[in-house]
């Protein structure tokens, strides 16, 4: 990559975090996960195009990776590691198809840099499985037919999982808010609400 390009593409950790905070606020739960830690530490500056060695903990497994600083967690999950259950719908924090849990909180993986996810526990839809068996929220989505094309489904499931971890017995209004950061163009919302209710009940047992 030429010098000109690296300047154009260059982004500092701090400048990214500043812009990311606004995006994350719309995701689901309250509280800025990363901005807190960034204020504590001095910003590290990395040049675009230079690979960094990082370790990500994904679904309880450590992955040692070489990533560019600008690569999103979504890109690394899908195209580098091959965890393609997490989907890309927009790449800019609009649709929620890429929702994963970071320390139990639903986050858009497209609005999270891979380097930012270091030191945090990342859970994807694959991480909800018990071996070959579906997790509780996944089972509820099957039973209630809470999807059509299935492309937003992983994100809906992760948003629901995050909601139920924080709030095991949500009201119907809380359920609607909990998945309101996740678009479903097929319009399966009605069944999604039913699935989250059912999952909450199943988790109680």
């Amino acid at each position, binding site marked *: *990559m*030429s010098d000109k*390009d690296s300047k*154009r*593409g260059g982004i500092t950790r701090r400048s990214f975090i500043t812009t990311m905070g606004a995006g994350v606020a719309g995701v689901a739960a309250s509280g800025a996960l990363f901005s807190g830690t960034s204020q504590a530490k001095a910003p590290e500056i990395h040049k675009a*195009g230079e690979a960094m060695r990082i370790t990500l903990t994904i679904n309880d497994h450590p992955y040692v990776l070489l990533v*560019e600083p*600008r*690569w999103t967690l979504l*890109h690394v999950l*899908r*195209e580098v590691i*091959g*965890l*393609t*259950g*997490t*989907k*890309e*719908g*927009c*790449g*800019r924090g*609009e*649709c929620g*198809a890429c929702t994963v849990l970071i320390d139990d909180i639903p986050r858009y993986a497209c609005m999270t840099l891979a380097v930012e996810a270091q030191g945090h526990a990342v859970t*994807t*839809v*694959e991480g909800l*499985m018990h071996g070959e068996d*579906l997790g509780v929220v*996944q089972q509820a*989505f*099957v*039973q209630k*037919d809470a*999807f*059509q*094309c*299935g*492309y*937003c*489904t992983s994100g809906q499931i992760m948003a629901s999982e995050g909601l139920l971890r924080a709030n095991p017995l949500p009201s*119907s209004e809380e359920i*609607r*808010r909990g*998945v*309101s950061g*996740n*678009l*479903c*163009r*097929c*319009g*399966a*919302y*009605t*069944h*999604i*609400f039913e699935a989250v209710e059912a999952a909450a009940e199943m988790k109680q047992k």
Partner: protein
Amino acid sequence: MKNDSVYYLKDITAPETPEPGENPSPWTNTTIIGKRLPRVDAYERTSGSALYPSDLLLPNMVYGAVLRCPHPHARVKRVNTRPAEGIKGVLTIITGTTPEADVWWRNEDGYRSKLFDPHCHYEGEAVAAVAALDPYTAQDAVKVIQVEYEVLPYIIDEERALDSDAPRVHPKGNLVDTESYERGDVDQGFAQADVVRERPFHTRCEIHTPMELHGCVAEWKGDTLTLHESTQGVYAVQAKVAEALRLPLSRVRVSGRYMGGGFGSKLKAGKYTVISAILARKTARPVKLVLTREETYLAVGNRPSSHMTLKAGVKKDGTLTALQFTCTGTGGAYPAGGVALVDWLIRDLYTCPSVKTECRDVFINAGPARPFRAPGHPQGSWALEQMMDELAEALHMDPVDLRLKNIPTVSQGRTGQPAYTSTGLKECIESGAQSFGWKAARQRNKSSNTGTLRRGVGMGGCVWFVGGGGPPSTIIVKLFKDGSVNLNMGASDIGTGTKTIMAMVVAEELGVKLKNIQIENADTGTTQYATPSGGSKTVPTESPAVRNAAIHIKQKLMEMAAEELDCDFEDLEFEGDEIIVSSRKEQRIKITDIPKLKKQGVIVGVGYRGPNPENKSVNPFGAQFCEVEVNTRTGEVRILRFLGAHDSGRVMNRLTYDNQVFGGITMGIGFALTEFRVLDTGQTGKMVNRNWHDYKLPTALDVPADMKSLPIELDDPEANNTGAKGLGEPVTIPTAAAIANAIYDATGIRITETPAFVPHLITRLNDLAKEG
């Protein structure tokens, strides 16, 4: 549009399938069909293990990206790729002057352009493409390619497209076509009417934006191209790519077993499909080319805007006497059905002796339309259903009663006015109104509507232009010696539950458990020909062929059983997974115990889709009802509840059926309240809201908590051997108009232009407040 030209078959040469032979009579009772059963592929879709085309990671795979014209109308003078060539990781760049990319692209109606045409007719036309080691680098390269454009005058306002000073999109001028239709005598009809009303209506351009981005993975093995494409029709993609690249059909394999939504925008291949194939050939590596969300707003289709005027005449008793309708619409920069089927409901839905329609399709410099869930119908419904309410008010009639007064039994809009095989329009309206509590709600709202929050109810009826399905379809079912089954069909499951319903048909006939049915579908290399999944015709097309294939297997099994039990073939019947001798019930044999099946290992059954009944029309019908609450101080509209009463023949799976109904209503809510393309008419002609932030889809917070689905299940033995009619499209037709009618009922404000959103409503409410 002509009666016999169906949009989802346009430009497709579908092979004929043989006659199905003996056509079984419809089921009298069912044990599997109609139940609420989870999908057969639900595990894959919820575990994250379903591989959508954009999920594929092939060995040695690289990434493509497309450079698109930033102007609505421009000529490419020069493309300098050198800055991009210098970027590490860039493998190849193709432009209009690359020999391998010198490919003709056939648009509809004889309009051809090059793959990278130097004359760009809309913002978002492909100008160049790149393959690189990773998607970031591919986008970096696209950004630094220098293109010198001659920016040309453009026209993006369809209402001004035919002005004498309007810039021309194509040399022949901006008029694509004028379609007219007439029956009876409208002048006489209006003279006979006691009430005549006329009003302009306008619906805005809507964008499909399915969740999975358009795209594919292209891979060559020698001279054979394999495309993993997110598509509604693998055979349609195969035909288009083979034509563009001049390849034999057998050298283009298209596979798309999972796909993340299309709604009409993925009925055919896109330029991106061909571009990825060329990039893959040039790099000699598999190429994944997935468009960005922004590109999907510009270049892969939309529902055209419609400028409509409807004049209607009605007698005191509610009998319609005449309907006169005009519409101007645009399919964008190429012929793309800019007014297709907008007038269909006016022609066909309610009994009316005199109807005249004229629809004008014009070119503008904007992205071409593609069929969008029930093309034309939600637009026509927006005008017709609001007009019906206006007439009802003038006559002091209940809107439900006015519609019930005008229920047809024949398809009036078609040549020869054939009878419908079945029509549940009356039942949909009557039962829907009753289940919704229509009369009580109207009464309640009338007496309590004085405060800031005002409630109102609204409804609308519908018919869908097609929805009966038909040939061709060939299905292969294999029964293995252990009683398990392989079902082979070409159709895509676009999220409607096609695979599940077809497996249920097999299970119904052969008594096999759903979990023992494996489905191979949507792959030109391994499955039979199928037309694209669209037009609400997949279930009525494929399910009868699946049933025929299963019955073919049964016949073979009974032949084997007759030999084994030494009895007449005619004396045998099926009972679950056993064959019994009718005259000696104690004599029976389990299918899997038939020695010949054990020896043979497998039985292959083939089923064909038989023809539809002659001189009859097979159509689904529906009616939807809703209640809204309007905040008269803020202009906010809250939808409190919705009910969809739909006649789509036999309900195949109640669980997926309800999901379709709710999904169609949700999409209709978007059309009514939030979705509209904005083009900058002032300075640039560019689309200004090309993302989901600025172009808002309905979210979980925009749908009512109270959603009801009320199937109106009528027997339709004539339609086909499963009695199913289409569902996916009718469920979104009357939604928007029902909402507009409810807003009127609540406020007295008639919103004739979509979307009925706050900025629009608040102006009208303020005017109303001033008038006092």
